[in-house]
């Protein structure tokens, strides 16, 4: 069972400290970007992480990759705590954990040809000789649906969707096991978005990949994910199988989020009752006391502003279904 989990994140925290002053900087507080979250990803599955701007979902990915230093917590990958590794060990393990970034315009160097971009991982990790590498790069281009003859082109010669394919090819170069996809389709148009989502699904089957899929669009996340975690102000508020999350959301934030997304079906939309959450997401510098959602929650009671609800299992059908709410499952009036 333990072995089934490819990645397990335990009590992860990342606080960014705020300083003011120029020379003699004073510590003035911290942004709790990620505040004590735990989740796991099983081998071969897609775990989706959703939430609104500033909820900390991208920080989770960056901390796992050790692009930023965690404040505390563990990330166990294949039985090894990534945070305990020295840089040489981490270098090795990075082959197995790769990323696809959001912005296909910013994540590819404009001065390198597509071939060089996809070849770079091989160079860094000193894999194969020149001839083998070129063959591999062409192969990768073909796998992601690009013309292998375009190996000498520059990123600006490609459209957004094609660039994202290049990003995918680069991520696949070292045959990783875990792919962190950080908003891989949010910069793309619907028809292209669908192409990339299909590509990711096909590649998952072909190469037996495990995905951490981060996005703000719940309908996209639901489409690709087996299980979904919903984040709000640096905390996980609900984790469930994607179908359960949609059918029986337990946390009022999830209910609001689901209800806020219009479904492309006019008749259905006319019948659908909408829960509109009031207000904006509070600042993570000074998050509300108790449950951080209580300021916007239509179900909030006195206890919500005093105590913080724990993430508990409310499963009914045997599938794990976690929620952090004192009144989990209570419908919103």
């Amino acid at each position, binding site marked *: 069972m333990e072995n089934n989990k490819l990645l397990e994140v335990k009590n992860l925290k990342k606080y960014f400290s705020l300083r003011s002053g120029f020379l003699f900087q004073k510590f003035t507080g911290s942004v709790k970007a990620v505040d004590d979250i735990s989740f796991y990803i099983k081998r071969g599955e897609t775990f989706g992480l959703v939430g609104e701007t500033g909820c900390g979902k991208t920080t989770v990915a960056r901390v796992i990759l050790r692009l930023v230093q965690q404040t505390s917590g563990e990330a166990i990958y294949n039985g090894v705590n990534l945070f305990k590794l020295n840089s040489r060990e981490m270098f090795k393990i990075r082959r197995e954990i790769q990323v696809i970034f959001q912005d296909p315009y910013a994540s590819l160097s404009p001065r390198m040809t597509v071939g060089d971009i996809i070849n770079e991982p091989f160079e860094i990790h000193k894999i194969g000789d020149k001839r083998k590498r070129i063959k591999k790069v062409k192969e990768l281009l073909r796998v992601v649906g690009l013309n292998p003859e375009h190996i000498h082109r520059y990123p600006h010669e490609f459209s957004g969707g094609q660039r994202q394919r290049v990003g995918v090819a680069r991520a696949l170069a070292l045959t990783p096991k875990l792919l962190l996809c950080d908003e891989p389709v949010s910069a793309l148009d619907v028809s292209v978005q669908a192409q990339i989502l299909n590509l990711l699904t096909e590649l998952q089957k072909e190469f037996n990949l495990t995905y951490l899929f981060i996005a703000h669009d719940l309908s996209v996340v*639901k489409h690709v994910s087996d299980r979904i975690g919903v984040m709000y102000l640096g905390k996980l508020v609900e984790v469930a199988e994607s179908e359960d999350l949609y059918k029986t959301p337990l946390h009022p934030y999830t209910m609001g989020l689901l209800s806020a997304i219009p479904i*492309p079906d006019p008749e259905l939309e006319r019948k659908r009752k909408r829960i509109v959450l009031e207000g904006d997401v509070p600042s993570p510098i000074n998050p509300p006391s108790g449950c951080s959602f209580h300021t916007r929650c239509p179900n909030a009671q006195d206890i919500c502003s005093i105590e913080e609800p724990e993430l508990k299992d409310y499963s009914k059908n045997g599938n794990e279904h976690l929620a952090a709410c004192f009144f989990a499952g209570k419908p919103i009036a």
Partner: protein
Amino acid sequence: MVETENNKILEVKDLKTYFYTDDGIVKAVDGVSFDLKKGETLGIVGETGCGKSVTALSILRLIPQPIGRIVGGEIIFEGRDLLKLGQKDLQNLRGNKISMIFQDPMTSLNPVYTVGNQVMESLIVHRKLKKEEARIESLKLLEMVGIPEFKRRFNSYPHEFSGGMRQRVMIAMAIANSPSILIADEPTTALDVTVQAQILELMHELKHKTNSSIIIITHDLGVVAKYADRVMVMYAGRPVEFSNVDNIFYKPMHPYTIGLMKSVTRLDEKKREKLKPIEGLPPSLIDLPECCIFRARCKYICDECKKEYPPLVEIEKDHFVSCYRGKEFMEGIIERFGN
């Protein structure tokens, strides 16, 4: 009856807006015709670069000169052709009878004036109110669009507002003079979903209160399904299908519309069905061929569409399609939602 005619508040006829770039002429909008009825919400959908924003900007004559030029067509509003108006008449129109909400609330407000000042401006300019009257009126507007603590916030600067709040301010400015047409260009794209829902609900309510018409430009089919009465689907600078929202979603007759419907992820999809995206990419708008522009990505090509661009025809009542095979879709000869 005459009433149907009177019902039209805006009529755009064969609008053509081209951009003259170093690489060639970009036909951003190339023959767009539609009408807007009183009190309705018209959705314009399409992907990046299909000309939906340029259409909106053309209505208000906000096309950057001299690169862009409106080279043809008519835009009839209140019996006048907007394309023939002088600058002064245009100034009187903008923000008064026709106003616009832009996509990015971060850049469309002026950072050096207080929010209250900016709302007051259009009242002073168009309604010739005195400063004090404008102040009172703007406070009312800010309250109406749901700015909390609006009295205090009146003197705040845009950077002190969140994205959603800024968009509310934009809406307050846009409705200040109870316009008859409100053009919203991707009003919620920059916002989070829960805030998006708030803003769209607000616009919807205000529309009913003021009885204005809305043109909402978006790429989000969900938003269209929820709020639009009629929809125009655009592709490469031209309308490809135009009808009421139900027809567009349940009886689409243009292969592009059908493709869009099959590409979109739905929250309520039963199981993880494979999406059926439209293959290929939208064309460059320079040197467009004479034939149907969608041809390169279309599964239903025929001999006719190789020769000439299919005209937008009324295939059934109030359902316009620009495809030679539209009839076959309508009669069910081609199965739309199959493979």
